């Protein structure tokens, strides 16, 4: 690396007269270490990208090619495998997931920010207790609760068939409940940072508590809502263990309400695709694509949201 480069990277910080001796010292071992570290970074990047690219390419290959050498290159880029995957059930799973997510993410954000707002902005007896109750829930693995949860949801189904096992509404409620700890935790710290002067001014002008929340605090909390919203979309889109337990058809002939991730694994395991490997690869591509798009367009918020939640 040249001296010119170095001074250019920090303009005007310490004058523009690099002393040769000093240069020597800063660069000690840097060359070797740099090649070494760049090598590792590049290898890891290849390790990440290669399997993903391989799967996407696989959806354009023929069955014989996939079962042959791993290094074959697709002969032609046809989208046949995608339409086959879609008609084999992936389309239905995709739709199920979208329906559930529309309900669950909206409800999670609404209920989560309501609870977080009250906990962050109002003093009352038991405030701390309720807050820690919510936060504690994030600590334990979900499957600890699976056995009783299964029967809980089955009992809900006896109250109303729309809430029971293998129902959209039942799964929505469960998703909301299991997303609340994180949502409350994050939105709580976000509402704490908003200035209280606006809130007070609204109250003085005779605005009700509820109206203050919906018309003043929610718009102000938009950046926080977006971060947590993205996190919940990704988390619930990728949820696996809850739908596996709750979304199994309880009687033969009942509609299959499988979520996308669950349906994909079932198809892979039940050899539904054994004779049609390209369709399985295409199904995986269909499942990855929305997540990839959401992640790449919001990657700053996703990274900031995920890390700030664990750092605080």
């Amino acid at each position, binding site marked *: 690396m040249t001296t010119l480069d170095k001074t250019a990277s920090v303009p005007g910080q310490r004058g523009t007269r690099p002393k040769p001796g000093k240069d020597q010292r800063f660069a000690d071992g840097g060359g070797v270490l740099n090649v070494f570290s760049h090598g590792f970074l590049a290898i890891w990047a290849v390790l990440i990208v290669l399997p993903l690219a391989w799967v996407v390419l696989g959806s354009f290959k023929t069955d014989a090619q996939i079962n042959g050498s791993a290094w074959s290159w697709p002969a032609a880029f046809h989208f046949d495998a995608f339409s086959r995957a879609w008609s084999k059930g992936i389309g239905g799973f995709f739709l199920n997931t979208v329906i559930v997510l529309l309900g669950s993410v909206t409800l999670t954000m609404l209920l989560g920010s309501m609870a977080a707002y009250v906990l962050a902005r109002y003093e009352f007896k038991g405030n701390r207790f309720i807050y820690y109750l919510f936060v504690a829930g994030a600590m334990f693995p979900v499957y600890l609760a699976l056995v009783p949860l299964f029967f809980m949801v089955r009992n809900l189904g006896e109250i109303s068939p729309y809430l029971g096992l293998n129902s959209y509404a039942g799964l929505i409620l469960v998703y909301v409940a299991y997303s609340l700890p994180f949502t409350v935790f994050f939105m709580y710290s976000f509402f704490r940072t908003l200035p209280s002067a606006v809130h007070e001014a609204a109250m003085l002008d005779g605005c009700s508590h509820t109206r203050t929340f919906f018309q003043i605090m929610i718009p102000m909390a938009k950046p926080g809502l977006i971060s947590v919203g993205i996190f919940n979309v990704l988390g619930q889109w990728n949820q696996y263990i809850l739908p596996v337990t709750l979304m199994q058809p309880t009687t033969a002939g009942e509609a299959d309400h499988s979520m996308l991730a669950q349906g*994909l694994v079932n198809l892979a395991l039940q050899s539904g695709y054994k004779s049609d490997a390209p369709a399985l690869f295409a199904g995986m591509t269909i499942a990855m694509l929305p997540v990839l798009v959401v992640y790449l367009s919001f990657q700053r918020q996703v990274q900031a949201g995920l890390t700030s939640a664990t750092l605080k």
Partner: protein
Amino acid sequence: MRHGKYPFIVGFLFLPIVLYVGLVLWPYAQTFGYSLTNWSGASQEMDFVGLDNYTRLLDDEVFAGALWHNLLLLILLPVVTILIALFFAFMLNVGGRGGTGGVQGVKGAGFYKVVFFFPQVLSIAILAVLWGAVYRTDGSGLANGVLIKLGLVSASDPVQWLSDPDLVLWCVLAVLVWSGVGFYLVLFSAAMQGIPKDIYEAALLDGAKRGQTFFKITLPLLWETVQTAWVYLAIVAMDAFALVASITPGAYFGGGPDHHSELISTYLMRSFLRNGEAGYACAMGVVIFFFTLILTVVSLWATKRDKIEY
């Protein structure tokens, strides 16, 4: 300000709390109760059997094996993931060749961060299907394909990966590390950016090498974040259900070949959903609960250091 405050608070908190307590906390609590019964899970009938389920667990060889595998993951997963993530985070944030006193990451740091993080947003189910394809036992799997191409493995005798009892747990560990490094890299990066640059600059002026700045400055100041990462990874290692259940061989939640990748979570689900031993499964759940709790407390206590203010 006072008028209607309490009705408002109650109105806003009511639904979230009902949902949360009803669907999260109450099932957790019930797990403890059921673990003391011989409930099959199929009917509502059950008898109180005291600690029988727990004494049975003591003699259960499959459970002992599963516990051992969990313990292995519990030690190896955090160590490997944190070491790789710390190394990468250091390279991406302060490892670059800075200017006169400048401290910066290597070139392309932003690109690497985006790419490395990507597995984290993929569903564990997608990871499972993907790695199932990568670990295929013939030459058409990606892993064998690469090794054959490099001439390390002959095409007639490919590696058996997930079907090899000695390899299967390592394969699982590799997938977990592969998907986890990006998240902890970003976590450590965020923490590193909070460290004032002048500390590094002062050290560099005093003639410190890059390796020294890492061990003498970065690591001590990041210690709390490393602790957090450790706890999170320990929870992942105790779980690891979806991955093992779907990529390892074995009917009903994997764990094969011959229980060589059995984890408590897969054994628990099989006991509950297939063997009709819900009470027994709940007892395993309780064991994991205390296991997780004790490990969290112990690791927090063992790694405790004085907080450094800067």
